């Protein structure tokens, strides 16, 4: 057991768990943040993607020990009312089918747009390469990323 400090969605948290516990289970089961989904546990699907120190990270393959002191933003912390431009674009273009992969897709896109405000198709495909959507919502994800990018530009 160890004590680990995290700043999650703007709040300081201290958790007492074994250091090798994947951050995903700390978020979901210790902190009750279930927006990051479990899809594979090995970093291969993207369902858990959250912002770790501002970049898209995969908490299923980060141990809490390794993440000690990190700033984490989960989908729950993205916006108070679900109206972040990426979320709005996702709703406007009716992206989701089952929706299970979408928090991870959205957080990956949030990180992408922070780096690249107007991504090309190739940059979109590259950023989302390891985010699987088993339902096949990719065509709408592409459109929604473009919509979100223009919403962000319009807002700034």
């Amino acid at each position, binding site marked *: 057991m160890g004590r680990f400090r995290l700043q999650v969605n703007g709040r300081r948290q201290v958790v007492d768990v*074994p250091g090798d516990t994947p951050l995903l289970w700390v978020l979901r089961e210790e902190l009750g943040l279930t927006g990051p989904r479990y899809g594979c546990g090995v970093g291969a699907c993207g369902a858990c993607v959250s912002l770790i120190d501002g970049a898209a990270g995969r908490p299923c393959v980060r141990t809490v020990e390794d993440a000690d002191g990190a700033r984490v933003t989960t989908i729950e912390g993205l916006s108070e009312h679900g109206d972040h431009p990426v979320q709005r674009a996702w*709703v406007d273009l009716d992206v989701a089918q*089952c929706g299970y992969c979408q928090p991870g897709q959205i957080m990956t896109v949030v990180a992408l747009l922070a780096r690249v405000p107007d991504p090309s198709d190739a940059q979109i495909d590259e950023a989302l390469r390891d985010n699987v959507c088993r339902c*096949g919502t*990719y065509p709408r994800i592409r459109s929604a990323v473009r919509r979100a990018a223009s919403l962000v530009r319009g807002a700034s």
Partner: protein
Amino acid sequence: MTVSRRTFLGAALVVAVPVPALAGPAAGAGPAAGLTPNVFVRVDGRGRVVATVPRPDTGQGVRTMAAVLVAEELAVEVEDVTLEQAPGDTATYGSQAVANSTSSRQLATPLRTAAATARCLLIAAAAARWGVPAAACTARGGRVHHPGRRPLAYRDLVADAAALDPATVPVTLTPPERWRLIGRTRAGRSDARDIVTGRARYGAESAPRGSLIAVVARPPWIGAQVAAVDDGAARAVDGVVAVVRLAAPAAGQGGVAVVASSTAAALRGREALTVTWTGGTPAADSRAWLDELEAALPPAGSPVRPGGPGTAFPGAAADGGADPYLRRVYRMPLLAHAPMEPMNATAHVTADAVRVWAPVQDPGGLRTQLARSLALPEARIAVTPTLAGGAFGRRIEPDAVLEAIACSRAAGKPVSVRWTRDDDTRHDSYRPMSVHRLTAALDASGLPLTRTHEVVTWPLTVLPAFANPAVVRASGDHFPYTVPGDVSVALRPAPIRTGFWRAVYAGQFGYAEECFLSEIARHGGHDQVAFRRRLLPAGSRLHAVLDAAAAKAGPAPAGVACHLEYGSAIAVIADADPATRRVRRVTAAVDVGVPIHPSGVIAQVEGAILDAVSTVLGAQITVRDGAVVQSSFRDYAWARIGDCPDIDVIIVGSQAPIGGLGELAYPPAAAAIASALAGPEPVTGMPYGVPVG
């Protein structure tokens, strides 16, 4: 008020019984009693329209469909409808199975009738209050209107409406020419906001507070059984509370469950187990299975003769006496369902009841099945279906639920069984392998005169009815063209668990048939679209969709395929670059009769096209040394966004009744994509261009 169920469930149900005045989870809640004309719809004391959705949403959009239908008939907006998910209860809701693309076909009329009944009762109540004829009143925006009167809100009418005898109030459905929403709404998915905020609750999020978590050590090779367990080290892991032996089939697929206070502890406990396994088939190999299926094809004879045995083939003489025919063998792989949310289920077993929360495809059927296997009356069993992170046929099966029940019984607490992705990939009930030999006799111009389609495959182990070759044939054979011939199916014992996978056997049969047809057309120098038009019967619904897809896709397409099933018709045209194996563009035109929720219709077709891209480019399950090789999306090569072609989906209007859709697009999309990728080469199996099995 009670009404005959037959009125509302229509032909889907044969027994007529009274409906409880209020059914569903929120029964009796709400302030005033409210208006509840039947099991599907109620208008509560605050005027809120509440629809009970009888079948689970697995991503196919049944909840949104229900909202559209109810909003239409109750003259409110889609987002005004509050949705409640029905618990498992076939006596009240009829079949609750998300299967065979039946939801829209079986539910649309009952849901519309339910909402229309409520509307007519509200109008009758307003008309009585005003002393005017009901025919002079209309419902709009949650209020009843009459020229010259102040509109009355539903909430002010529900008490009067609930007191009316529905038998005295004629119910009229809104006619199609007056539809505002059905087939027209631009509304998105009902649960969209919950999905994008992470609030949507799937299986894991629906477990009651304080549930323990279990993970299961599963057979390392097919059919292995537990011989011995040394669980000392596992029990010593901090947080582990129990180790439970699961005996198949009563407790699922069999194995050893580690029950703990957290997922991380359960996984550590599983790691620490020492299990000795016995039996099974440690040498099983999927390549060998496929070779065995191929070896079981009947001896290759001549193709069926157009005029019967002994008659000549037209064109044979011109061809120097040789029988002009084409023959091709197609080898089809194992496929896993791989829903994005891995299998899981939560159960709480107490002295007198069993409660289940799980993403399931048939909550009512599951409850009935549990009542039988647990020897409990259905009233003691509660099944709460959650949102499902995909299903694709996998969640018809109860294996995860049975595991959760066994674990909860042993632990005396609610237990949530979680499958890892590795478990989910390696312990699925796979789409069966199959081998198809197709033979066509051709006339002098290269048109097929007859066809022979010989299939050797496995039954579906999850449903005994599928041990019958006639049932397999009926599932697979939907050949829509006017080419006489024979289809024969031989079944060999399945060496691995097999189950329903989107489109079931039509996925294999339709792929082989349309790939073969493409080759015949190419062989005869025919245009793929014109060739199919010639072979379709006059009046087929496929003419219109084929024309629509061809008009959009442009001339001389390489990959073309049609499919007619579930009361719907579709044509798919694909464009691909064989050199880079890139699928550039897929155009689909679909006729589903009434496209209730257009965005949802398009989404289902897009999804099936991505399944086709995935399985044609390379996703397959293989077995070596008795075990499934793949373990996650890393090696079960599902399409990524970069593999996604540009997709156009055209909805073609028709006068046909509502058709099914969820599975329709998969077989033709796979065939069209493979044919486009193959270019001048023949397709010989799925995936295209890589060894199968």
